């Protein structure tokens, strides 16, 4: 299956991608498995979305899909079917904070 992911603009620049990117997945996608695949394909993103060591989501980033905020879900919770089917993207969003 192919998953669609939309990064915040600064991370798109860092990863040298425009717009959405696509990731091939072999199993039911979760936040953890999507980030694993994302970091494998785009190693420059390691540490920018989740901490290198603790694997915790960086505080000013959130995960949205299908109109739902999934940021506080377990990273191993299966993502909605629309994500797995590729009809909806997983949105990684930077908080509107600071100036």
């Amino acid at each position, binding site marked *: 299956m192919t998953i669609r992911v939309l990064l*915040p*603009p*600064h*991370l798109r*620049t*860092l*990863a*040298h991608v425009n717009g959405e990117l696509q990731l091939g997945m072999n199993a039911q996608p979760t936040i953890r498995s999507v980030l694993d695949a994302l*970091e*494998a*394909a*785009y*190693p*420059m993103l*390691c*540490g*920018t*979305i989740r*901490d*290198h*060591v603790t694997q915790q989501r*960086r505080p*000013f*980033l959130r995960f949205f899909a299908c109109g739902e905020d999934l940021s506080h879900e377990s990273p191993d919770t299966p993502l909605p079917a629309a994500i797995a089917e590729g009809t909806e993207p997983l949105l990684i969003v*930077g*908080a509107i*904070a*600071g100036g």
Partner: protein
Amino acid sequence: MSKVRVLVGTKKGAFILTADGKRQNWEVAGPFFTGWEIYHVKGSSVDPNRIFASQTSGWFGQVIQRSDDGGKTWTQPGTPPGESTTGPGGMPKGESNKFVYDTSDKTGKPLTTHQFYDGTQHPWEFKRVWHLEPSLNDPDTVYAGVEDAALFRSTDGGKSWHELSGLRGHGTGPRWQPGAGGMCLHTIVLDPKNQGRIYIAISAAGAFRSDDGGATWRPINKGLHSQYIPDPNAEVGHCVHRIALHGSRPDVLFMQKHWDVMRSDDGGNLWKEVSGNLPTDFGFVIDVHAHEPETVYVVPIKSDGEHFPMDGKLRVYRSRTGGNEWQELSKGLPERNCYVNVLRDAMAVDKLDSCGIYFGTTGGQVYASADSGDTWAPIVRDLPAVLSVEVQTLQ
């Protein structure tokens, strides 16, 4: 013909300013890494085309960038686009943005907490790289001073980083505490005559020295007096803002402390105050003339509560006597209504025969003097707030 390349880190990207040896007509390139805080950009003296940059963000964490063509193009060493993070056999390849504190039983055991603002102990948490200091001998070796305060080193051109944990582990680490800007290791000075000797400074812990290439460390704060800490003469706890030396005489150090301009003639074993006739001895930057070891520059800032020049007049002060006797330098600098700051990494000198002095402000100006500070002019006026200024003298 000689030329200079000024490397500027700002709150919203990096800029590279170039000019020939006359330093009158400048080309401005950038912004690079748009929208990110660029805490420091510095080139290797061994290979001037190799430049390292610390790119950081409260949202996305730390990234290290490297250029091998003088700043025209940049990559993250060890993590180019499309390459796997693992090499043959599944071993991890370089991860240029990975700074992990040493917690090994052998060397990292005492390195778990430091003092927090409220006096309690707080775990070390990596936040960002404040300062990058390329080796004076090897283009692949570079040091990184980070927040929370620790010293890291890369020996593969920035691909991977390893903590020199003898610094945090030497004994005083649990007594270090953050300054207003965080607990940052912001100054790294390499002794050009003694490869083993490294000076670093931490806010708010003080100055430290290694004589064995970073393996072991000792505090060098004797003579510092800080009225705002419980023991004004404590071994550690001083808010050192910047240290500078002249390469021909590396045992002589100059320091801008939170308050007080200081000097040591014995590698930091003992400091004495040389604030002399400065209108205020608070400030952040300090640097030494390229050819005159007794000529020192500071930018006095009104106070720790008012981070701007006295009376709204931006002034550099120069001492030609190694401190105590200071001369106001004002020609070409704002005479009124100037309320910017000059941050600790935002002054540098070039090595041309007529030494050039450079500094950047939180108002986005970068000022240059091609005559050792006698006259000044802005290179650029409207950059984002300047965090750091370095200069390379190129042939």
